[in-house]
């Protein structure tokens, strides 16, 4: 995957470059807002994910984001910033950022968010998490390469959880995305989750309950 890192702090940028390149990504690094604006000016920038610092010399990160969203509503943007307040986060998300990390952050967390964003915005037809793989067009699952047949409702439920792997998914959202149109009580969802949980290899894929909220699918627990 092709990543663009816009970060002016050399120490942090070096660490992030090392981390992301180690994770098998091609990473391009820019250290100010003006070059980032120029780099992203055309719709054919060929970047799959942008990691954007807000506090940049010259043009600020929020302005870069705003300019990018004028012509490119798709490419996921992860904001990295020392401005920790929720206020700035709200502004960033309003302007079209997809996620937000306040500095300082742990590298584990950054990796997880990058993975999640790339998965969610993947243009490929295959999604994978650990041993599990999904063909988005047919909704067919494979586990370790072998077909992993599921009843239709559980199949849609797992597809929805996989799309959002690594983050809690609300029950209401599950009901809407996995059982669209069908009247479905919270208890019914619980039943399907329970059945699904029993089918998954518990030692390699965890379907966790987030109390009072929903569920979360995690690989390599």
């Amino acid at each position, binding site marked *: 995957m092709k990543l663009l890192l816009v970060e002016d702090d050399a120490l942090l940028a070096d660490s992030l470059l090392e981390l992301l390149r180690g994770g098998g990504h091609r990473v391009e690094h820019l250290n100010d807002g003006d070059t980032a604006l120029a780099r992203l000016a055309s719709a054919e920038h060929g970047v799959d994910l942008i990691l954007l610092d807000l506090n940049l010399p010259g043009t600020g990160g929020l302005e870069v984001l705003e300019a990018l969203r004028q012509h490119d509503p798709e490419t996921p943007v992860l904001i990295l910033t020392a401005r920790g307040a*929720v206020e700035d986060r709200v502004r960033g998300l309003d302007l079209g950022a997809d996620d937000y990390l306040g500095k300082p952050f742990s590298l584990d967390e950054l990796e997880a968010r990058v993975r999640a964003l790339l998965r969610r915005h993947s243009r490929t037809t295959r999604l994978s998490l650990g041993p599990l793989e999904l063909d988005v067009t047919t909704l067919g699952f494979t586990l370790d390469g072998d077909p992993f047949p599921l009843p239709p409702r559980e199949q849609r439920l797992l597809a929805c959880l996989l799309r959002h792997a690594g983050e809690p998914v609300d029950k209401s959202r599950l009901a809407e995305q996995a059982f669209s149109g069908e009247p479905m009580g919270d208890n019914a969802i619980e039943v399907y989750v329970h059945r699904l949980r029993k089918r998954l290899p518990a030692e390699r894929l965890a379907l966790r309950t987030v109390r009072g909220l929903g569920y979360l699918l995690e690989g390599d627990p």
Partner: protein
Amino acid sequence: MKAAHSLYGRLLGWLTLPLLTLGALLLLQAWLEARTTADHAYDRLLEAASLAIAEQVQRQDDRLWLDLPPAALEMLAGDAQERVFYSLSDQQGRHITGNARLPLPSDRSAADGGLLYRDIDWQGLRLRQGIRRSRLEGWQSGESFDVSVAHTREGRDALRFELLRGNLAGILGMGMLAVVTLLMALRAALRPLTRLRHAIRTRDPRTLAPLDLDLPRELAELRETLNGLLSRMRRVRANQERFIGDASHQLRTPLAGISARAELALRQTQPERWRAALETIHSTSENTARLAMQLLSLTRLANPEYRPELIPVDLNDCARQAVRDHWMTCHQAGVDLGADCLASPVHVAADWQLQESLANLIDNSRRYGASRITLGVMTHPPRLVIEDDGPGIPADQHLLVLRPFHRGRDDHEGSGLGLAIADGIARNHGARLSLGDSAMGSSLRVEIRFPEASQ
């Protein structure tokens, strides 16, 4: 146009407008008056001439006969070389004699016994005509006749312009005087504004001392408003200065620790010592960064000028969002974070700071040994409840731990700011934060109680 935006220009404009109108009216009046006066003077000549002619009219051979002495017409031709015309006509308006066939008004009864004046256009000439109806003295028949005398207007016009010229000089003089007075008055009235501007411009930009300047009442109000602003700015700046002092003190300590640990590690050669030092440095630097953020939150809260922008928020959404945001961090630390929401929405007026408050409370519980944290929502009054199964806080410490920099428990990790920030945010929302023991025994229950919705 620039003048429209200047006070001076605006005043000048509004004062000049009536002045110009008045001047124009005066001019018009002078013009009309000069015309009346000139006509009046020359009409007397017409009257005299027509009378002189009428006296010469006789009856001969049963006809009216006029033998005109040249003097009668000469009095009508002044210096201005006017052309003079006369005509005599009988009762029926038939022309008898004269040097021109002057037109007569269709209704001549008005002229009976007197003189009728009128302006006429005759063969391309602008004439003033006087018509006198008269009778022959001593004749029984009493036949009446009309004497019509007219002359061109050169003399009248010349007189009129002369009269006007005299008036014009006076009007112009008065106008000039008025304008000069106006300019001086405006300058004098606006001078305090110049002084104020000068006083502001020459101030040291770093000073926030009040403006001390003697000004007229309207500007004194402006000065007071400005001084009010300056005093609020002084308060904000004092607050910021205090923060910078506190922050540098608070941050210097962990930085000194990091520096000492690194220096010590560099003197050693065993990789396992380096590793241990790096681990300490990593965790200390994380805590330091968190401390910096908390200090910033606290300053914002302590800012006397800060007013939250409150919008209606569902506490259920608020709790769910907080769980979503912090679940991963808690999960990685082995803490089970969950929500206990209500089915129906519970609306309060809040802003984004409420999330920051919850973040601090979750963080606090996690750091102080909880393994299970639950965010709950309750109604009547609307409440957010954060309950954990940690060691709890002794009741006698409940108020103390809300103070900034108070370290309630014997810990070395906390900054002593989390609860103070949460409390400050609750106050900003008109809510009350209180600590209590949870139902689970020796654990902590923090409740943020909002005022009952007023609608």
